[in-house]
């Protein structure tokens, strides 16, 4: 029995061959390969063809490892003797070498993969560095001509223009502004990336900031029939020390984004005090929406510059907003994360390490500008702005936000305006004279003549690009109380409103 096993495991795995100096086989036990006596071993396999010339000397021993011979992998010993024929011993180690093959295969593949990866990485890093400096320089260069276009457009705006010309100038201005926002965004990003971005520390009234944010974004949300709400944790101190304008920028970018990708439902800002120690506060900001959501595989990309997960003309933009948020948060030593479910909504959460003054003396209101003290009514005035021009919308929005005395709705055309006035009771209506679907002269009488005459007495102030248009003197006949000429200053608008809210 033992011999049987030995025969199976040991004996057949070795072959002894005796050859003549010229390579002719003189004897072979044929345990592995059948070899005819008298045949040329070089003909059997080219390995032997290159070995035979080395067997000319006597008393040499050559050992070869891991030689593929036919379908076997073998070690081969070659010995020469004095006065006797050379001996070749072949050991079949196929199994052993095949397992080695597997290990080597894995090792080599891993090494090659990591080399290729690091190659791609250096390539990508170089590309990224180039992109950054290029973008930083280029956007800087873009700013000058753009500033030029903008200021000349503003000069043009103040010349005598017809309504139509004025509207066209507004379009140019609006496009300039879009471009400017994008360039500023790109500059911000590249400044952060090359470490040239600094935040400043100042004490500010957190509640006041939230009021402004609330005013602007609930107005914008209502424009899309969405609801925007801020949920503030009462434990957060009223006065915070940090970079107010950057925090505003963070909120603006995330909330704008949430509103943009939500067609129905709700956008919420949740503020939570994570902790408060000594003069340090850690505040968590969470912006949730009920919008279209983001697929899991894309979630990582939303913070990457120039990536737009939703490549759809319905949602325009540069794709920089959230990249800036991510970079700003990181710069301010915070964390940011996103969760989303396709079709259900998205939630973006970040936290900021801020400070707060331990003994803050009730802020001496540094309200020196005349405009600041115009309104201090306890109940907010409700205003409807009917205006299709985005710039004018923002201008009015910002002016009114500074007062904290108003509630604003925006309608972009006559049809929307009619819906709004029917559903709500406004204290005053601001109306552009040139709307996409109707002129102000036609719209005002429609509003005045609503059933029950609910707007019979409500002040209607028209915004107009020119004083030369037709029927300018007939505005009173149309039921318009007054006309404010564009472009107007903050104070001009506020005084106009004040006139009606005595």
């Amino acid at each position, binding site marked *: 029995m033992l011999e049987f096993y030995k025969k199976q495991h040991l004996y057949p795995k070795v072959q002894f061959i005796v050859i003549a100096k010229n390579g002719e086989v003189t004897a072979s036990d044929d345990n592995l390969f059948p070899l005819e006596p008298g045949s040329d071993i070089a003909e059997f*396999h*080219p*390995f032997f*063809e*290159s*070995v035979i*010339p*080395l067997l000319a000397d006597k008393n040499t021993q*050559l*050992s*070869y*490892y*891991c*030689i*593929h011979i036919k379908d076997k*992998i073998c070690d081969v010993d070659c010995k020469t003797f004095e006065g006797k024929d050379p001996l070749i011993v072949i050991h079949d180690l196929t199994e052993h*070498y095949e397992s*080695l*093959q597997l290990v*080597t*295969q894995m090792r*080599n*593949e891993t*090494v*090659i993969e990591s*080399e*290729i990866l690091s*190659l791609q990485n250096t390539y990508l890093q170089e590309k990224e560095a180039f992109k950054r400096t290029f973008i930083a320089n280029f956007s800087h260069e873009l700013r000058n001509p753009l500033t030029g276009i903008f200021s000349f457009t503003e000069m043009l705006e103040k010349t005598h223009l017809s309504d139509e010309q004025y509207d066209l100038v507004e379009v140019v201005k609006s496009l300039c502004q879009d471009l400017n926002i994008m360039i500023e965004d790109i500059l911000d990003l590249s400044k952060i990336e090359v470490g040239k971005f600094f935040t400043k520390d100042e004490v500010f009234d957190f509640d006041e900031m939230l009021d402004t944010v609330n005013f602007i974004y609930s107005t914008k949300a209502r424009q899309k029939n969405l609801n925007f709400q801020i949920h503030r944790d009462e434990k957060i101190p009223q006065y915070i020390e940090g970079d107010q304008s950057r925090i505003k920028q963070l909120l603006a970018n995330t909330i704008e984004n949430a509103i943009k990708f939500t067609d129905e439902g709700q956008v919420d800002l949740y503020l939570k005090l994570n902790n408060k120690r000594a003069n340090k506060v850690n505040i968590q900001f969470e912006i949730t929406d009920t919008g279209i959501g983001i697929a899991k595989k894309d979630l990582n990309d939303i913070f990457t510059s120039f990536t737009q997960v939703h490549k759809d003309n319905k949602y325009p933009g540069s794709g920089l907003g959230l990249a800036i948020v991510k970079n700003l948060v990181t710069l301010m030593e915070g964390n940011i994360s996103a969760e989303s479910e396709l079709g259900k909504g998205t939630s973006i959460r970040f936290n900021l390490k801020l400070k707060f003054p331990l003994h803050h003396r009730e802020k001496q209101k540094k309200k020196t500008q005349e405009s600041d003290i115009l309104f201090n009514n306890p109940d907010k005035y409700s205003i409807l702005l009917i205006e299709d021009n985005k710039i004018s919308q923002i201008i009015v929005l910002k002016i009114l936000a500074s007062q904290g005395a108003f509630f604003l709705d925006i309608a972009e055309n006559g049809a929307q305006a009619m819906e709004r006035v029917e559903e709500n009771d406004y204290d005053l209506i601001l109306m552009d004279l040139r709307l996409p679907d109707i002129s102000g002269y036609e719209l005002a009488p429609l509003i005045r003549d609503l059933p029950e005459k609910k707007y019979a007495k409500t002040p209607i102030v028209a915004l107009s690009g020119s004083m030369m248009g037709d029927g300018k003197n007939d505005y009173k006949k149309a039921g318009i109380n007054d006309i404010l000429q564009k472009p107007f200053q903050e104070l001009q608008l506020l005084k106009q409103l004040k006139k009606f809210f005595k």
Partner: protein
Amino acid sequence: MTISKKIVLLGHFGVGKTSLVRRFVENTFSDNYKVTIGVHILKKEMDLPENQVNLIIWDIEGNEDITATRSSYLMGSHGFIYVFDTTRKSTFENLKRDLDHLKNNYNNVPIIVVGNKNDLITSAYLKENSSLFEQVDYFTSARTGKNVELIFEDLTKKMIS
């Protein structure tokens, strides 16, 4: 007259030694990487105007360190083809050192230096790295077959002269 010459292909693993041999001997190519362990020995006849040469080609396992190559594989060689991968710097950054090692230990054996996977790189890349590639005799592609025949022909001529 028929003579036999032993050629060994040297270089790091995965640079395309086996692929070059297969292209030369069988005129085939595969994208799959099957590591060579030990050595495969193949034979191909090369007809030159004056001679017929039997090339006995030793396609050995790749090694990052040429000094660790089994000397039994190199013994009795008539020519070397040193292959590196043009896309992987690690396979050619020690080219000079490796060539010196060969020259010191196998003094009279001709060497052909080959940068393989030429199909994956651009001429701009070649220009950028030209200083690293000074000692290269041929850029080849086992995939397209570019210059493959030529390296064996050139080496054969060098071996019999």
